[in-house]
């Protein structure tokens, strides 16, 4: 006779990814590194923002984990700034997951001394959907939205904007040429995520970058203080 029964699993669908992310975060904490997950749609200006950030924070030791579907173009651009760059080709996958970043961390550990680093920036694959669900072990999520993408994007891709700790409205130097209302972009983001920190920046002209760099360094200090409290 066949017996039927129910097995209650009650597990998160992304349980394995979450476990991997916690593991990566524990490594970052152990090494005293703040990890930032940089996310946006393709072409919003992640790499250029990162280049300006590397130039603006020469006083810090920074490494980059670069997610790209097939090429190393972005990684090569960043290497010119003299920082360690670990390139991860995600293949057909449209986001980085915690396992891929763990692979990047192992390589970083092999090639460099991670304990000497202050900041690791993970540049995710350009995509406003999937990266929002796959934590990689970051302490801070930073999302970018360029002015050319329009005011409605936060409403259409709300999960990404809900999850972000900081939102950078990029390419503001283009605003005069566009029918775009930056206040409306901010209002749309704030109805989804009232606690997000927003900066308007142009990596090309340097406008607004100072505030972003200041915020990033403050956040790193908070992160370091939090670690000292728990140790």
């Amino acid at each position, binding site marked *: 006779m066949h017996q039927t029964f129910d097995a209650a699993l009650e597990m998160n*669908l992304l*349980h394995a990814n979450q476990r991997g992310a916690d593991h990566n975060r524990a490594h970052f904490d152990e090494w005293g590194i703040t990890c930032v997950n940089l996310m946006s749609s393709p072409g919003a200006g992640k790499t250029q923002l990162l280049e300006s950030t590397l130039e603006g924070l020469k006083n810090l030791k920074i490494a980059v984990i670069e997610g790209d579907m097939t090429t190393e173009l972005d990684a090569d651009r960043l290497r010119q700034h003299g920082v360690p760059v670990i390139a991860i080709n995600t293949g057909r996958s*449209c986001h980085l997951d915690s396992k891929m970043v763990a692979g990047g961390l192992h390589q970083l550990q092999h090639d460099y001394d991670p304990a000497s680093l202050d900041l690791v920036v993970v540049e995710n694959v350009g995509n406003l959907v999937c990266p929002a669900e796959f934590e990689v072990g970051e302490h801070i999520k930073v999302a970018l939205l360029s002015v050319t993408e329009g005011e409605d994007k936060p409403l259409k891709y*709300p999960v990404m904007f809900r999850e972000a700790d900081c939102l950078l409205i990029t390419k503001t130097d283009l605003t005069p040429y566009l029918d775009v209302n930056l206040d409306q972009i901010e209002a749309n983001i704030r109805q989804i995520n009232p606690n997000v920190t927003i900066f308007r920046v142009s990596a090309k002209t340097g406008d607004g970058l100072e505030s972003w760099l200041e915020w990033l360094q403050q956040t790193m200090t908070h992160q370091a203080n939090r670690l000292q409290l728990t140790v």
Partner: protein
Amino acid sequence: MHETDMTKALIVTIQDWWDAQPERPTIEKVHLVVGAFTCVEPASLQFAFDVQTQGTFLDGSQLVIKDIPLVAHCHTCRRDYRPEYGSQYACPTCNSPMEDIRSGRELKIDRLECVAV
């Protein structure tokens, strides 16, 4: 198509459970709970599950997805409301931003319906 990766994760989790069972039961149904405020499209998940389970221990299992609506709570009005996905997330009465999400972020394997062999 991150539903492909999500399905892979789902199968691995169920496989771990199944391997730990002394008598490998037949899994007839897999019950998932998927919130509306996630990046998961139930139809894509269903498709990926049917394709990826072929020829595995889950071949023939049915995926049952329970959709959970997005419900937010407005502290000013002291009541729950349902945001309009894609257009309006603030409270429709007082326009306060969406502070607390009561439901809609779920991505859970709830339970398995099994038959002992």
